[in-house]
C-alpha cells in the first residue's frame, strides 16, 4: 500500500452538500412509477391507439359513417370494408371509429363538466369550511341519495337527443364524487404550512385556491377522471340500449353495440367490433387509472 493513499482527499466544502441520491420530484417519481407499471402502460397505449383511430381512422378508408349502400348490407370483413357493413350497407370500420369518437367526446365532455362543477363546488366547500361547508355538504348528501339513473333518464326524456344533452345529463349527478374528493383534499391541504404562509402574506382567496390548493389536488382529480371516463362511456352505452340518446345516423359505441346485439346470431361481427372496442377502452382507462392511482396516490407508495 502506498503512502499517497492515506493523504486526505482534497475537496471544497460544497461537495459535502452534494446530495448522494438523485432527487426526484413528485411528478417525475410518479412518471417512473407509472412507466414501470406494465398494465398501466398497456392501458395508455390502448387509449392512445384508440384515440388515434377514432380521430383519424376514417382516413384509412374511402367510406364515411353515413353513406348507405343497400346492395352491400350485412357483409363480413373484406378488403373494402375492414369490419364489414351494417344492415344499411354502411361501412362498419368508419362507423365503429366514428362511434368511438362520439363515445369519447361524450365522456370527455361529461367528465370535463364534472371536473368544472366538482372542483368549484368541492373547492369552495372545503376552503371556506364552517357554515358554507355545512350547507354545501347537505346539498351533496342529498344529491348522493338520488338514484342517478332516474335523474338521467328523466333529463333525457326532457332534453333533445344529442351529444351535449347526454353529457349534461350524465354530469348532473356525476360531479358529486369529484366534489367530495376535491373537498377532502382541500380540507387536508388548507391547514398546511404553505397555505398558512401564503395567507399570512396576504394572498387573496382566489390566489391561494388557484395557485396553492388546486395544483395539489390535481393528483386525485386525475385518478378520479381516469375512472369517470369509462363509467361515462358505459352509462352512455347503457342509455343507448334503452333507446335514449343520440340523433341518428350519429352513433356512439353504445348505439353500435345495441344495433349489433340484435344481429348477434347471424352477423356477430357487427357486435364484435364495437363491443371489443368498448371493452378495450374500459380496459385501457381502468388499467391506466390503476396505474395512475399507484403512481399519484402517496398512500399507496410501497
Amino acid at each position, binding site marked *: *500500500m502506498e*503512502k*499517497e*493513499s*492515506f*493523504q*486526505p*482527499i482534497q475537496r471544497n466544502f460544497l*461537495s*459535502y*452538500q*452534494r*446530495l*448522494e*441520491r*438523485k432527487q426526484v420530484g413528485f411528478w417525475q417519481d410518479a412518471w*417512473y*412509477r407509472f412507466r*414501470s407499471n406494465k398494465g398501466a402502460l398497456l392501458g395508455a397505449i390502448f387509449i392512445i391507439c384508440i384515440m388515434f383511430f377514432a380521430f383519424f381512422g376514417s382516413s384509412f378508408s374511402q367510406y364515411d359513417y353515413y353513406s348507405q349502400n343497400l346492395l352491400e348490407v350485412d357483409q363480413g370483413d373484406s378488403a373494402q370494408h375492414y369490419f364489414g357493413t351494417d344492415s344499411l350497407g354502411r361501412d362498419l370500420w368508419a362507423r365503429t371509429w366514428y362511434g368511438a369518437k362520439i363515445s369519447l367526446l361524450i365522456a370527455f365532455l361529461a367528465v370535463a363538466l364534472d371536473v368544472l362543477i366538482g372542483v368549484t363546488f368541492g373547492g369552495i366547500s372545503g376552503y371556506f369550511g364552517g357554515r358554507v361547508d355545512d350547507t354545501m355538504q347537505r346539498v351533496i348528501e342529498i344529491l348522493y341519495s338520488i338514484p342517478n339513473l332516474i335523474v338521467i333518464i328523466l333529463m333525457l326524456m326532457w332534453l333533445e337527443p344529442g351529444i351535449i344533452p347526454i353529457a349534461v345529463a350524465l354530469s348532473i349527478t356525476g360531479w358529486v364524487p369529484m366534489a367530495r374528493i376535491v373537498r377532502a383534499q382541500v380540507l387536508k391541504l388548507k391547514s398546511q404550512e404553505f397555505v398558512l404562509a401564503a395567507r399570512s402574506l396576504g394572498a387573496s382567496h382566489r390566489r391561494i385556491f388557484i395557485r396553492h390548493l388546486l395544483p395539489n389536488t390535481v393528483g386525485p382529480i386525475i385518478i378520479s377522471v381516469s375512472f369517470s371516463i369509462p363509467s361515462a362511456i358505459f352509462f352512455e352505452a347503457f342509455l343507448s340500449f334503452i333507446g335514449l340518446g343520440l340523433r341518428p345516423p350519429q352513433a356512439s359505441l353504445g348505439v353500435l353495440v345495441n344495433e349489433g346485439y340484435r344481429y348477434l346470431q347471424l352477423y356477430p361481427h357487427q357486435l364484435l367490433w364495437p363491443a371489443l372496442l368498448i371493452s378495450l377502452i374500459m380496459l385501457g382507462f381502468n388499467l391506466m387509472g390503476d396505474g395512475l392511482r399507484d403512481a399519484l396516490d402517496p398512500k399507496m407508495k*410501497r
Partner: protein
Amino acid sequence: MTPLLTVNNLHVSFHSYQGEIQAVRGIHFAVKPGETLAIVGESGCGKSVTAQTIMRLLPSTAKIVQGEIRYEQQDLTQLTEVKMESIRGSQIAMIFQDPMTSLNPTMTIGQQLMEGLRKHLHLNKRLAKKRAEELLSLVGISNPHLRLKQYPHQLSGGMRQRVMIAIALAGDPKLLIADEPTTALDVTIQAQIMELLKSIQEKMGMALLLITHDLGIVAEVADRVMVMYAGKIVEHGTVDELFQHTKHPYTWGLLRSLPQLKQSREESLVAIPGSPPDLLHPPKACPYVNRCLQAMVICDQTPPELTACSSTHQVACWLEHPMASKEHENRAGGDE
C-alpha cells in the same frame, strides 16, 4: 458463554422498480444470554431490516441473499415457516416502534394478549385470561381486568407500548428485540418505558436487542453497542469503549450530534453533513467517504475491513490503519 444468537455475513436486499436495494451488506454479530446489545444508526442504515430478518418478518419484496442466523443450533434462515412460527413469540419476541399502529384496532387488548398465550403456552381461555392480567400488572398497567376489554384507541401511547411489551412477554422469550421502542413516545414516557424494559429484562433474564438511533438510551441501557451505516457495521464495542474511545468518524459524528447537558450555549450541535449513500448503487469503497472530514484517498478506493482494536472493540475505518496519520485521535476527547 455461548452466544444465544449469532449472525454471520448477513446480506439482505429489497426489490424495487428501480432495481435491487442492498439494505444489509454483510454483518456479523452475536447476542449472549441476558445481555443488552444496541444497534444504532440513522434511519435507512439497515438496523430495522436486521431485526426483521432475525424474526423472518421481511416484506415479500425483500430476500436474504446470503448469511446465516444461528439461534440455539438452528439456522433461522433455513427454518420452515411452521418451525419459525414456534420460535416467534416463544423464543424471540419483538416490539415495534409505533404503539399507535402496532395494535389491531378492532380487537380488544385481551384478545390480542391471549392469542400468544394460547398459541405458545397452550392455556385454556380462563388461564390465558388470568395470565394476561398478570402480564398487564407486570408491565405496570393498573386495573388489568378492565383493560383487557378495552380497544387500543382507548389507551394512551405509553399504555399501548406497555401492552405491546406484555404481548411480547406472553411467550416467555429468551430474546426480546425492541425496534425503536420509544421513538414515537413523549420524552417522559420514554424513560418510563426504558426503565420498564430494563427491569423486566432483569426479572426474566432475557437478552435484549435494542434498535435505536438514540445514543442517550444506549448509554443508559446497553451492555454493548453496534453502529451501523449503509448496511454495514462500522463500529462495535462495549458502551464504554464506544463512548470513551470512539474510533470511527461516523460514531463520533453521531456523538457530536447528541445534545448534552453540560454543553454550553456557544457550542452548537453539529449535524453530519450530507446524506447516506444510495443503496441501489452502494459504493464499493467506504460508504462514509463523502461525509467524512478525515477522508483519505484510499477511503474512496478500497472498503475498510472490520478490524479489532481490543477483544471487544472492532471498527471498520482506514484511519485505524498504521499508515494513516494519527492526528484524528485527539478529537476523541471531544474538545477540538
